[in-house]
Structure formats: structure tokens, C-alpha cells
């Protein structure tokens, strides 16, 4: 498999539940909003789109590339209006591996902008984070 792991994040999480249950939390919008965002429209099939209302103001959106229940989910990821991570610019890859009645979830977020580009856009990002913080403060 050819892959570039620069600008990637990898997180592994063991969950004491079957892959079927975990996959439902990734793809069923009713379950999804309980762990991410305040609203979500998900169309989990290859080529289908999703839109997640992160905090009432910022939208994360993208397109599903692989949907293989209950094992694997690949989608593009970005924030609408974000300076360095607009929709389509990065990829989130989630694999579920059954392990003695539990599930090992591995999430990889690939294609993040490189360090120099990131520095260039620090100001924009800081502004974005401040806006996010401000949005939180209004609750």
C-alpha cells in the first residue's frame, strides 16, 4: 500500500462493544450526534455526502469514499470556510477490528497541511479557534 504518513494523525481506541454497534455510531445520524457535533446529515454510501454542524456555527463536511459495514469507513473531511482544511482537503479513515467480543477502532486523519503551510496560516487558524471559543461562550 503506498501512503504518505506525513501530516497524519492516528488514534486507536478499544471499545467493549461489537463492531456492528460501533459502526452504527459512525453512520446512523441519530447516534452520531450523541458523540460529535450538534446536528448531522449523513448519507453513508460510496459517493454519499455528510454535513456535521460542529457547534451551531461551523460545518464539517465531505464525501464517503468507502463504506464497508461493519469494518471500514473512509471519507474526505474539511471545515466549510476553513483556510487550510476546506472540505475535500483531508481524509479520515476508520477501521474496526473485532477483538475478543470488543472492537479496536483505528482512526487515521490523513493529508493534513504540512508544517510550513501551517505556519503561514497560523493567524487564520488562531482566528478560527477564537471564533470556535466565542461560539462556545455564547451557550
Amino acid at each position, binding site marked *: 500500500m503506498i501512503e504518505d504518513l506525513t*501530516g497524519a*494523525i492516528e*488514534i486507536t*481506541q*478499544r*471499545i*467493549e*462493544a*461489537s463492531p456492528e*454497534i*460501533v459502526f452504527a*455510531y*459512525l453512520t446512523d445520524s441519530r*447516534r452520531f450526534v*450523541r*458523540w*460529535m457535533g450538534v446536528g448531522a446529515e449523513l448519507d453513508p454510501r460510496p459517493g454519499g455526502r455528510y454535513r456535521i454542524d460542529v*457547534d451551531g456555527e461551523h460545518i464539517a463536511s465531505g464525501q464517503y469514499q468507502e463504506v464497508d459495514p461493519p469494518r471500514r469507513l473512509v471519507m474526505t473531511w474539511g471545515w466549510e470556510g476553513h483556510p*487550510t*482544511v476546506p472540505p475535500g482537503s483531508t481524509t479520515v479513515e476508520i477501521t474496526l477490528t473485532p477483538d475478543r467480543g470488543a*472492537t479496536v*477502532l483505528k*482512526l487515521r*486523519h490523513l493529508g*493534513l*497541511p504540512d508544517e510550513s503551510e*501551517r505556519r503561514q496560516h*497560523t493567524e487564520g*487558524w*488562531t482566528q478560527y*479557534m*477564537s471564533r*470556535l*471559543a466565542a*461560539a*462556545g*461562550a455564547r*451557550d
Partner: protein
Amino acid sequence: MQAATRTTPVPIEAAMNAIANPRRRQILRLVWDAQRSAGEIAAAVDDVSWPAVSQNLRLLKNAGLITERREGTHRYYRANRRALGPLEAVLRHMWTLDLGRLRDLAEQEARSRKKT
């Protein structure tokens, strides 16, 4: 009154250490989007003692992950998302926190399905 905020990124190791504990992750989630008083936080994690909550708040504060604002005898906390620094660290925190929540929910559902 404005709370002083650290603008330098938190060293990833200190931050990861601080969020390695599920109780501290729970607290960080509570104050991620909104400022909450010490009392509100203690009530939301009511299965541990106040000294334990207080210690976890101090640890999160020392790691630079939350900021504290004092108003009279009250203390308020919120996630210091600016200090979470570069994009990669912010995203890592976001996914770690969100997936922690997903795990809790999925495990709850697995347990309740077993019972029935």
C-alpha cells in the same frame, strides 16, 4: 474580567498525559464548548469526591488545557482551545475526546443489549 490565556501550545506529552485519565477527559468535554463553574463540574461527575474533582481540575489547569477564572468565591473553567496549538494537536484532541464519547455510548448500548 478577562482570564489570562496561554497562547503557547501545550507540550503534547503533558497534554496527552492529562487526558489519559477518563475522569479528566470527562471534565474536559464538559468545558470544551462552554464555561462551567466548579460546582457544575462536580455535579456532573458526582460519582467521585470533590477533592478528586478539584485535583483533576488543577492537573488540567497545570497542563494548560483549561483556564480558571475566579469571580468572588466562585471558580469557572473552560477548555483553553487556543493553547491546544497547532492544527495537528487540535485535531488529535478533538478526535480523542469525541472517540472517547463514542466509546462510552457504544459500551453503554452493548451493556443494555446484553441485559435484555
